[in-house]
């Protein structure tokens, strides 16, 4: 079947032909212009340039493009105490020794490249707590990695029976958090360490409030970049991939509708392959892990 032109006006003809950027041409029997080899090659070239940009900018201009996390220790404390107060438990008080222990634990995980309660050298969470000067009767530890916000971290802990047991235990009075960014297994990671305790020798309430202590800790966290790398890369993947999948889908639909026989590979196979990639990327965007 041959497509008929609407009229002989050159502008209208140009406008009419523009749709063949997105639809296969019935006369030329080719894919849409945006799916021809030249176009696919251009997409690959653009992606290679973007890969170079994403490698160069975070190294040389870390304040512009980088990995951002919206997790803050003050929000973690707020959500944790909210869960406790809702169940009639006492709110936990921030303890500097537990903050120090949590930070040391997070740094130890990055330095020794592990993700566990006990380090490969056999160092347990209690060792960090004791070495920070906190003499405990009861102590506990919750870990999380790669979450993007504080409420999701606390929600994940509440949903897990063993973590909830720590979070809602009557045995604890004190709490300390660490939110540290670093490279784990070669991958940019945000680790959250939550340490609980009940001191053998209860300290007199310090003159410094919990909020001030948290602000002091948070001021040491590296500044957030202007553009979040994770959002940018995932958006490019989904938009670019989705665009090409849409073009291939239009190709199948229009070729069938107009009975266009073309010389090309299996379009449906391309769609399945691309969709699998997009689904994989979305799966990898799921909330992080807890331990």
């Amino acid at each position, binding site marked *: 079947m041959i497509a008929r032109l609407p009229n002989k006006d050159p502008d209208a003809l140009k406008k009419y032909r523009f749709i063949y950027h997105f639809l296969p041409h019935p006369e030329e029997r080719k894919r849409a212009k945006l799916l021809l080899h030249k176009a*696919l090659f251009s997409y690959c070239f653009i992606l*290679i340039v973007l890969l170079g940009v994403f490698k160069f900018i975070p190294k040389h201009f870390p304040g512009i493009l980088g990995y951002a996390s919206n997790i803050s220790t003050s929000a973690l404390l707020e959500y944790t105490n909210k869960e406790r107060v809702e169940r009639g438990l006492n709110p936990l008080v921030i303890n500097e020794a537990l903050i120090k222990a949590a930070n040391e634990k997070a740094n130890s995980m990055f330095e020794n490249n592990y993700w566990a309660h006990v380090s490969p050298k056999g160092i347990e969470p209690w060792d960090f707590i004791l070495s920070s000067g906190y003499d405990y009767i009861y102590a506990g530890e919750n870990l999380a990695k790669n979450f993007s916000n504080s409420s999701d971290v606390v929600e994940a802990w509440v949903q897990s029976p063993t973590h909830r047991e720590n979070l809602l235990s009557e045995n604890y009075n004190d709490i300390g958090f660490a939110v540290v960014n670093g490279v784990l*297994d070669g*991958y*940019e990671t945000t680790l959250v360490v939550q340490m609980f305790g009940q001191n053998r020798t209860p300290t007199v309430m310090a003159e410094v409030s919990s909020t001030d202590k948290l602000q002091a800790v948070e001021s040491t966290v590296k500044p957030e970049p202007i553009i979040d790398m994770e959002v940018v890369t995932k958006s490019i993947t989904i938009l670019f991939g989705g665009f090409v999948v849409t073009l291939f889908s239009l190709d199948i639909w229009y070729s069938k509708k107009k009975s266009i026989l073309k*010389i090309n590979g299996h379009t449906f196979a391309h769609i399945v392959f691309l969709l*699998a*990639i997009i689904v994989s*990327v979305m799966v*990898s965007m799921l909330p992080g892990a807890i331990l």
Partner: protein
Amino acid sequence: MRSSLYEVIEYVFIICFAILGVVLFWFFRFNPFILKFLSAVGCFGYVIFGVVHSVVTKRFSRLITLEYSLVGLFVYLILLIAIGN
């Protein structure tokens, strides 16, 4: 006949590989090295499909092989960006 049998085999392989890819991506989502390796294997495998397709259909081999190669390369680059370089 030979060509249509090949088509069935191709689709079965691609769908199985797609499902396997999603599962492995979920399983290894925090290990970029394994993800990059899997992506490279998947995309190279796709190029091989293009070559086999051309051999089986015996027509327009260069055009079709080039198309599969470009789609494979495009997907690989998209994945590298998604994984975070």
